[in-house]
């Protein structure tokens, strides 16, 4: 009985998360055009002065992990078609 009391919440907790991935607080709209490549997005971010570490596709946006000119950690959400910066997240 007690076993169930502990096991069930753990499984429930695990299951409740599965659909909750996603994140990406940024939304990119009108993404039906041709998407820029990861390399092109990385190059665009580099042009803006960032030291690009990684480019990921996050739902509708590209998410660029980079360092800014002060060496601070940033996540840049960029529009996949236009390459415009949609959102800049500075990590403390």
């Amino acid at each position, binding site marked *: 009985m*007690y076993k169930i009391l502990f096991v069930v919440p753990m499984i429930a907790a695990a299951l409740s998360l599965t659909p909750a991935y996603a994140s990406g607080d940024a939304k990119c709209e009108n993404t039906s055009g041709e998407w820029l490549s990861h390399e092109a997005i990385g190059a665009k971010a580099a042009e803006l002065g960032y030291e690009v570490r990684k480019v990921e596709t996050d739902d509708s946006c590209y998410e660029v992990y980079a360092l800014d000119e002060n060496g601070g*950690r940033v996540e840049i959400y960029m529009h996949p078609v236009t390459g415009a910066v949609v959102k800049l997240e500075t990590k403390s």
Partner: protein
Amino acid sequence: MKPPSKIKVWDAFVRLFHWSLVVSFVVAWISAEQSDRVHEWSGYLIAALLITRIAWGFVGTKHARFSSFIYNPVTILKFLLDSLCFRAKRYVGHNPAGGAMIIALLVCLLVITTTGIMMITTTFWGIKWVEELHEITVNLTLGLIFLHLAGVLLASLEHQENLVMSMVTGWKRRNEKNKKRNRMVQKRKKKKAQENWHGF
């Protein structure tokens, strides 16, 4: 004089550590994609728990010490086979498989917390292998937790005891050395249980 039938096995620190780790692991897992702040703080808490538990493994009470639950691989394998056949020996402290599980979980959690801390340094920010190692080890740990729960359930059924409750209270049934006596006690208990049952 009959010796007391119960014995204190898990000290307060071991129990507090165990359940704090359960809670902080669940919180860390849930917050992973939701909140950096909560995720990072639960991670720091796990790291602090690990460090204190490892220290306690050297200076703690009898059953909390590494020396009391590290067995050689042959003993562990033999124990696992016996368990599957429902004829494994009962241990008052950690059994060989449980001991191996603790080591495996500690190592995995150390890898997870280390890579987690690395991920928020400028040196390793956005570096793929660190993130991958972090995530793969988390998945591995989820598998270990599942096996841990299965092992606890199996051993509880096999030896007719509630191991989850023991991790809450710290108390376990004393291991009887004399098998014959053990059987007599069992018989007496059964009779008593039946009497109690009829009493209702």
